[in-house]
């Protein structure tokens, strides 16, 4: 039973191919890690899965629905923690949570209970009435995590959720997610740059590089394949040691040029 099915997915920005003919699937109830260097196409893939971007070609299915054609149905089945900030700075922490809860139709009583529980969980309850713009980067990140856990969807996407989180919160968050996975069968799809995190938590891993999936399997299978001792070594030997600054920069340039030329 696959909850996510991706076949021959391609996304181009102008001439630049961000996602180059990838296929993979994620089983229902699985904890799946999507790894890759900067600019490899992870976030672009997630955006296509979560209805924010439409693919150039290829097919996508999320819980049996097509994100392009049935976007409303698809949006009912997932939750997401974005890589970059997505809070409203002019609202208070509590209002951000409440806003999310209402949008996702969490019943009022349950919503209020969970908001309190989660905000205590990320230790922001005593700051609940502060405007988010007064928060530090770490506090904002914690609030985003709490918000992402407010409703319990079938699939949770986490795009580098632990970036900038302290080990305590990170640990807390993964325990919460594992519970959710065990008790409610929630599928978890995450990206990270911390290989030990992927090794410890993910049941299955796909590695994407330059828009192509170059390896898939359990952490052990990947290690065997690359003949490496740790996932980190396996990752490095599969994706190479050069730093991917240029890929990311190239993509930004492309997008920028694309924007300049399409502006009237």
């Amino acid at each position, binding site marked *: 039973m696959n909850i996510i099915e991706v076949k021959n997915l391609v996304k181009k920005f102008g001439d630049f191919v961000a996602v180059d003919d990838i296929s993979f699937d994620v089983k229902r109830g699985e904890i799946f890690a999507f790894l890759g260097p900067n600019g490899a196409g992870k976030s672009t893939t997630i955006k296509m899965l979560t209805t*924010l971007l439409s693919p150039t070609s290829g097919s996508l299915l999320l819980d049996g629905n097509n994100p392009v054609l049935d976007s409303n149905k698809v949006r009912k089945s997932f939750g997401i923690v*974005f890589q970059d*900030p*997505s*809070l*409203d*700075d*002019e609202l208070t922490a509590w*209002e951000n949570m409440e806003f999310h809860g209402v949008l996702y139709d969490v019943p009022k009583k349950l919503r209020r209970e969970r908001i309190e529980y989660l905000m205590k969980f990320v230790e922001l309850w005593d700051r609940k009435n502060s405007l988010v713009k007064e928060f530090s980067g770490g506090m904002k990140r914690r609030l985003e995590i709490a918000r992402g856990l407010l409703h319990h969807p079938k699939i949770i996407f986490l795009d580098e959720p632990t970036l900038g989180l302290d080990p305590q919160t990170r640990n807390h968050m993964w325990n919460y997610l594992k519970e959710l996975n065990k008790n409610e069968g929630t599928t978890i799809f995450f990206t990270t740059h911390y290989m030990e995190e992927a090794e410890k938590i993910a049941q299955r891993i796909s590695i994407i590089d330059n828009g192509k999936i170059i390896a898939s399997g359990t952490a052990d299978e990947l290690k065997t394949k690359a003949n490496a001792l740790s996932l980190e070594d396996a990752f490095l030997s599969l994706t190479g040691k050069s730093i991917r600054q240029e890929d990311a920069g190239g993509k930004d340039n492309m997008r920028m040029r694309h924007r300049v030329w399409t*502006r009237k």
Partner: protein
Amino acid sequence: MKTIYILWIRQLKRYVRSKSRMIGSIAQPLLFLVSLSFGFGPIFQKAGNGNYLNFLVPGIIGMSIIFSAVFSGMEIIWDRQFGFLKETLVAPVSRFNIMLGRTLGGATMSVMQGLLVLVISLFMGFRPTSWLLFPVLLLLMLLVALLFTALGTMIASLLEDMQGFQLIVNFLIMPLFFLSGAIFPLQGLPKILSVISSLDPLAYGIDAFRGVLINISTFGMGTDIIVLSIATLLFLGLGSYFFSKIQI
């Protein structure tokens, strides 16, 4: 319904909390009201058109509504840059409802803005011919505000950042405002200008405000209401179409 409400209340909260924006949005209409009414009042009177302040107030109400409505529609650009737009776009709420909630919020705010101008003008000596039609005025203001918030939404859905903002102000909002008859009567204009004015939806809005407040109307109330209603529906449709096409 709940989702439209929460989006509406969010727009209002942001507005009330942003003191500088509130002051800024009052200062401009106030400046126009004071300088134009004192500056042109005597000439207007001599030309036999009566009290210029009475003529001007409905126009400045229209001006404050069009500015705050278009800008609040364009707030989507900020939300896109600060990332919050994503949060609403992935939510299990139809894009039409999101757009509607936001637009209602922006429109409500703009109506309040217009009412504030009305109150200020009362202190300056403006007197409407009758208060009986005040509820009608409110409805008309809401209609105009919805129209231009939807226009702002449409523009913002097509722009990626704030760089085109100045262009919009200079080439769209300013002409819409100046050609609407907000500050001068539309009668006796050269042919071309009067044709252009008759294509400006704001002209019908301000004409209707005048009809209600000082009982003077160029196009006639019936025409005003029909044109405004059609334009509002059209822009709500266009706004929600382009909003639904946003990709991030």
